[in-house]
């Protein structure tokens, strides 16, 4: 809304080129096939088509390739067709091995559509690979590392060179190396740099942020309605008609672009102000003469109508959000989350979560809270862990034993090991003595525990502002506003700190708590005026709240951030990716 920001913010490069490139390549691929009749969604059922050639466009997944085998049943019926699979963004040997195994290799030919990057908005680019998270972090499968490297390479060759690259996380490091290798393979032409620095970050560096409830408008819309590829479907409860409507949510939507980064509590007053303005604009036509009316109709009316439509849509969405959130005791839920972040009244939080489970409220929500509890508390006490786990399994089914195994593997939900209680003591002692001593104590204790160090990180980076101060959400003073002033997202704070210092120097203790894997490389040849344009790449997904926080940081410091992510994520998507109950 009334964010002035700094004047010297640079302009973002134009990413529509990426779309054009991808489209042209697809058209070329399809035209190679003669007369592509229709694109089918690949499903577990036969394809009805009179055409004698069928073309599939799929992600390289073994399961999908197997479906094609089923769809291909007409081979048995003695019908001859030609099949072509176009894998995007690339094919995998394992997929082709499946075709060979099925005896279909040759009947089916394959191709690749190197579609890596989908610009969702002026400053958001997605690889649309939600499976990246599970494949990489849970299964430990690095199949997408090169893909990420290639995506980076593509950006680099069109908008680069980058003068500096920072990163943290194992996967970030590997992606960087893969990209570097690809740069060496190709010939690099000197070109005008449109992006200054890049920052790569693994999702597992910060699980807290995506597990928190989102309260910034865009994030809230994503939590409730699920935004897919920058597009959301509003049901009849929003449109107040029997039709649902699909809307693109991006900076083109003039109403949305003004509220997307706002805390939800501000959105209503903004929308009603906007409605009043609109009314005034409409009212202007009273007392107009014919000529004025003509100009009004030809110049303003269309815009006003458009705005009217958008406004009523977003008001509808707000009402629907309010209704849903009051129904589920959102206030109390937020209070619990904030207590966990602060490390305050933990017993109350546990009994809140327990009741949640007992009442069989959302299975995902319960897990989300359990994970938040575990990460912030550096694991659950064995007694609590067993009791909560048992109740969870009783409420939602024993198949979730596998879910628990998955969560444990990622360190999202763990039982405190004996000896780790020392860190609890350390954090208590740390609160009593001053910071310097606490730092020394942390050093002494950190050798004893290896897991999440949220408390220590939170203290070092000042992630949780003091709760006794009033936080004016209308005039945010830091990135904490995206969580009602209760917490500054760790991921964004790291980025802020590194950019401020222009290196990792001085953050050694923090990176140690984050298990290291940080890096920074400078390309001396690349000198550019685009230093203030910063590409941030999230490996494993990022949330809309994080994007809002970075936009805020950009406005404050005169940066422009471009967020590249393997996919947009939120707490539900994150947890759903780890469920093990579907055998």
């Amino acid at each position, binding site marked *: 809304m009334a964010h002035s920001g700094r004047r010297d913010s640079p302009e973002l490069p134009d990413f529509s080129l990426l779309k054009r490139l991808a489209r042209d390549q697809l058209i070329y691929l399809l035209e190679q096939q003669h007369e592509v009749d229709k694109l089918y969604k690949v499903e577990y059922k036969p394809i009805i088509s009179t055409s004698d050639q069928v073309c599939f466009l799929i992600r390289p997944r073994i399961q999908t390739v197997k479906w094609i085998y089923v769809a291909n049943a007409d081979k048995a019926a003695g019908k001859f067709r030609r099949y072509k699979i176009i894998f995007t963004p690339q094919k995998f040997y394992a997929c082709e091995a499946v075709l060979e195994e099925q005896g279909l290799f040759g*009947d089916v030919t394959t191709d690749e559509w190197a579609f890596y990057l989908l610009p969702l908005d002026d400053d958001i680019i997605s690889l649309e690979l939600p499976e990246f998270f599970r494949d990489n972090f849970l*299964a430990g*499968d690095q199949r997408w590392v090169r893909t990420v490297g290639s995506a980076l390479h593509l950006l680099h060759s069109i908008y680069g060179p980058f003068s500096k690259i920072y990163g943290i996380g194992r996967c970030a490091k590997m992606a960087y190396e893969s990209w570097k290798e690809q740069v060496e393979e190709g010939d690099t032409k000197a070109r005008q740099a449109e992006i200054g620095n890049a920052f790569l970050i693994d999702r597992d560096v910060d699980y807290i942020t995506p597990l928190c409830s989102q309260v910034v408008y865009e994030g809230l819309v994503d939590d409730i309605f699920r935004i897919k590829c920058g597009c959301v479907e509003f049901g009849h409860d929003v449109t107040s008609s029997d039709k649902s409507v699909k809307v693109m949510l991006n900076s083109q939507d003039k109403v949305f672009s003004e509220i997307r980064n706002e805390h939800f509590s501000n959105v209503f007053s903004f929308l009603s102000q906007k409605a009043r303005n609109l009314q005034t604009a409409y009212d202007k036509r009273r007392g107009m003469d014919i000529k004025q009316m003509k100009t009004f109709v030809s110049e303003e009316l269309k815009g006003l109508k458009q705005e009217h439509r958008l406004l009523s849509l977003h008001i509808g969405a707000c009402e629907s959000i309010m209704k849903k959130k009051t129904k589920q005791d959102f206030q109390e839920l937020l209070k619990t989350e904030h207590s966990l972040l602060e490390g305050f009244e933990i017993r109350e939080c546990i009994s809140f979560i327990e009741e949640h489970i007992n009442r069989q409220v959302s299975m995902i929500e319960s897990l989300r809270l359990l994970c938040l509890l575990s990460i912030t508390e550096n694991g659950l006490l064995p007694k609590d862990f067993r009791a909560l786990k048992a109740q969870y399994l009783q409420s939602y089914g024993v198949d979730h*034993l596998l879910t628990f195994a998955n969560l444990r593997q990622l360190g999202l939900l763990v039982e405190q090991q004996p000896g780790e209680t020392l860190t609890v003591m350390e954090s208590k002692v740390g609160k009593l003595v001053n910071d310097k001593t606490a730092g020394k104590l942390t050093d002494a204790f950190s050798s004893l525990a290896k897991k999440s160090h949220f408390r220590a990180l939170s203290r070092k980076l000042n992630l949780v502002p003091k709760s006794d101060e009033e936080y004016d959400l209308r005039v945010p003073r830091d990135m904490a506003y995206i969580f009602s002033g209760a917490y500054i997202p760790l991921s964004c704070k790291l980025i802020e700190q590194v950019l401020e210092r222009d290196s990792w120097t001085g953050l050694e203790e923090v990176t140690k708590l984050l298990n290291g894997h940080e890096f920074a490389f400078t390309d001396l040849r690349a000198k550019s005026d685009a230093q203030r344009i910063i590409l941030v790449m999230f490996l494993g997904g990022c949330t809309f709240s994080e994007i809002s926080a970075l936009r805020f940081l950009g406005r404050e410091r005169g940066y422009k951030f471009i967020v590249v992510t393997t996919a947009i994520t939120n707490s539900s998507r994150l947890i759903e990716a780890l469920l093990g109950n579907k055998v």
Partner: protein
Amino acid sequence: MMKNKPDEEDYWNSSKFKAFTFDDEDDEFSRLKESKQAVNSIRSLVEEEDDEDEVEKVSWSGEPVGSISWSVRETAASNQKTQREHAFPKINASSPSVSRSHSGYSLSSLFKGKTKPGNFQPFTDSLSESSVKLYAPELRKPKSESKDYISDWSPEETIHRMQQGKVVSLERFRSLQDKLLLLDFSVRAHDGNIITAVILFTLTSIIRVLFRELESRQTALRHFIHYLTEIRDHRLLLELLSKRRDFLKSCLNLPFSPEESAHVQDHYTLLERQIIIEHAGKVEIFQKFPRRASILNMPLITTLYYCCFYHYNEPEGTYSSPLNIRHTFRISEKQYFVTVLAARAKLKAWSDLDALFTSRNWLGFTKKKSPLSFHRVVDILQKNSAPTQVLQEYVGLVDDADLRIGLAQKHKCHDIVINTYRDLKDRQLLLGYRGKVERGSAEERKINDLLDSPHIRWKN
């Protein structure tokens, strides 16, 4: 074959081999040495066990090796030549390799891998030799494309070409050592696609040694496991699911941790129970409230809810009685209360709730007690649209005065609000509240009576 021998020596001793060096040499070399040690130890193992036949099968005569490694090359070739595609379906494991000489493939290279023990020595030498040399960056460069045979690519080059989707030949990686070397390079390239491919095309044929080797190669192992998970036969799994009970029974003997096997044991008992419960019950209640789904395979709490709904008053001895379930599965008091509450409230059986919360002390007085705070109870009741009288009773039990009055106002429990204000002797609040009740209602009269009462000393 003989002709190629010097080439091979050349190859191992050439600077090209030394050229694939790394920045973090120590780490990588220890890795390679590890491979080598592992290989050597296996070799001795294999020889000890006198498993000559196995070894033979592993190397070439076995058909799977041929078909799998072929596919890589054919795959790549198919991109270039589409007109040949009709020949592809006919390729199968038994088709002899000679027939594809058109692919620039050399017969000699085919047998290269068969050179047995002697092959190890030069490799070792070159390793130890190179380890003392300086790794000048320019040495890595020459990746000449001018080689005569595609089979001459070094492991590193092979991996590199695979990443670019170019033609490679994996036939030459025949010895376990070579295979593992190739695998280690694929891991170094951080490319899951290639890691899986190397395992698939060169290593599945030696599956028995593979597991042991992968133990020390965590990254590769995880790729293999993920691949196996992905290719699993889903029809078989569905079959398993329908036999879930037997399946679980067999699971009980699996090495679960003690805590987890208790959960699995419970689940087994639950499934047995559900089968009994599924067919039990009186017809009337099912006619009145038809079931929406079968109870089979539902979670425990859902089962308990079901029993609270359809079998509430059954004696504890029956399997479908809620109390029986509570005891069998050691359900906590709170969990039990919440579930009973939800189920009986759904049926609007308010008297059951009354009995549930009432406890009698030793003097015979009754008191309402709940493991769940009463404001939550009110919340659940209200969601099940309990009438005001019922709500009022439970709102009145909320300890905290502020919370109580908030709830009372929200749910229009006028009596509670009025009595609380009276107890607070707050005339102003009472006056204010009069505006909120219906005109001419009993509540309004009650407020008027109180306001007129001479016995109350108002504080304002």
